[in-house]
Structures are given as C-alpha cells and as structure tokens.
C-alpha cells in the first residue's frame, strides 16, 4: 500500500469529504476529486479500496450512532484486523466523529423524515374592533403563521386565525401532547 495512505494527515479531509457526500447531500464529490486533492501521489486503483474502507467505517459508526465506548471498541478492532487501519488513523477517525456526531445525526434524522417539517413560526395578537359578520367589539384574535416544508423543497406558509376560545382549546390539546412526551421520556 502506498505510504501516503498509511499516514493520517489527509484523512481528516477525506472524512469531511465523505461526510459531505454521504450525510450532507453535497453532490459532485467524486473519488477522483478526493484523490487529487488529498492523495495526489496515490494511483486511483490503490485509492479506491482505501476510500471504500474509510467510507464503510464512517457509515458503520454513523449508522450505529456510536457512543464513545462503542467507538473505541470498534476502532480498536479495526486496528487489529488484516488490512485494517493504523492507530494514528483510528485517532483521526475518533476525533472526527466526536466533532461531527451531532451534525451527522441531525442530517440522518432529516433524511428519514419524508413529511413536511416545521421551519418557522410567527404570530401576532390583534384587538378586532369590528367583525364582518357581527357587530362584536373588541374581540381579540391571534394570527399565527406556520412555515412548513419538505426537505429540499420550498416552504409553504399557512396562516391561522384563533379567537380566545380556539386558543384555549388548542392549548389543552398541546398540553396533552406535552403529557405524552413526559410519559415517554420517563426512565423505564
């Protein structure tokens, strides 16, 4: 194996490139781009299996959402394998995961959400002095705008109007959700 591949200097950059492609949806990060930028002295034939190995390791770590104990055990096993990684490389991978774990996890969560997400919320309370339908005076109304959208798509804006009664009704439902969450989060 080319000596450059055993080193660990360019590995941090390689892992970043792999993460961009695998988790952050960045198109156009090719094998050749990574090789020419990070391992220019290495041939493509030698680089390919090395890249596949590192990609596999990163995906395994992310897929299992490894904590630091699991990570250490996993990487130690990789250093002992035939054709595995060096302990310097293990250290680089470990540092990379510690720095990027949260962001990669968030990205994986977003990838698995196919429904719209809530992107934004704003609201205002108006004191209505007159209504189109009746001669009501001083009926306060809350106007809420929700920004919702699917991954990679433009947002849709939904504007809702609530009077005091409706606010109260929805608040009750929201407290039921909150209660459910508390029940779920309680230690078993």
């Amino acid at each position: 194996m080319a000596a450059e591949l055993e080193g660990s200097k360019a590995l941090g950059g390689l892992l970043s490139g792999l993460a961009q492609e695998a988790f952050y949806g960045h198109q156009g990060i090719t094998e050749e781009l990574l090789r020419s930028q990070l391992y220019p002295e290495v041939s493509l034939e030698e680089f390919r299996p090395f890249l596949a190995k590192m990609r596999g390791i990163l995906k395994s770590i992310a897929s299992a959402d490894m904590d630091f104990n699991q990570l250490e055990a996993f990487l130690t096993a990789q250093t002992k394998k035939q054709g595995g990684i060096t302990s310097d490389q293990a250290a680089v991978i470990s540092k990379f995961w510690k720095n990027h774990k949260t962001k990669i996890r968030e990205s994986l969560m977003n990838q698995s959400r196919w429904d719209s997400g809530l992107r934004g919320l704003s609201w205002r309370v108006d004191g209505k002095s007159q209504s189109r339908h009746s001669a009501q005076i001083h009926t306060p109304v809350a106007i809420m705008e929700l920004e919702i959208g699917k991954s990679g798509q433009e947002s849709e804006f939904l504007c809702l109007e609530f009077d005091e009664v409706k606010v109260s009704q929805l608040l009750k439902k929201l407290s039921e959700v909150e209660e459910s969450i508390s029940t779920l989060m309680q230690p078993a």
Partner: protein
Amino acid sequence: MEGCSEPRLDAKSEVTNQLVDFQWKLGMAVSSDSCRSLKYPYVAVLLKVADHSGQVKNKCFEMTIPQFQNFYRQFKEIAAVIETV
C-alpha cells in the same frame, strides 16, 4: 425556529384560515435504511383548516421534541397576551 421576545408577523401567505381540527401523534423513529440506530421521538400533527370559502384542507407536518416545546411555549405566550387585550 425563532423564538422572539417581541411577537411579530410578516405574513407571507395571503389567506387566513380557521383551524377546524388538530390531531396529533407522538412517534418514535427507531431505524432506517441510512441509520440503524435512529431512536428519536417526534410529534406528527394533522391540521384540518378551512379557508374563507369554507373549503377544508389537511396539512400535516412533523416536529422534533425541542421544536414542539418551542411551539407550545409560543402558544402559551399567545394565550397570555390574548387574555390581556
């Protein structure tokens, strides 16, 4: 999602709707093809909204737990403000 100290609205939609029904579900994403160990809870919401003509549409979306808690907190603020107006 923004949590502002001052309520503000710069409405981008042109029509105000009435909320006819609010249905919710608390789910737990366990695993997916890209991540075997997802383990994250989420709140899925189905809104039935009626526009000024009375036509009812369904809108659904998901929130993470922190997003829901922000939503709830903001709605409590609305409730507090609307009482004083």
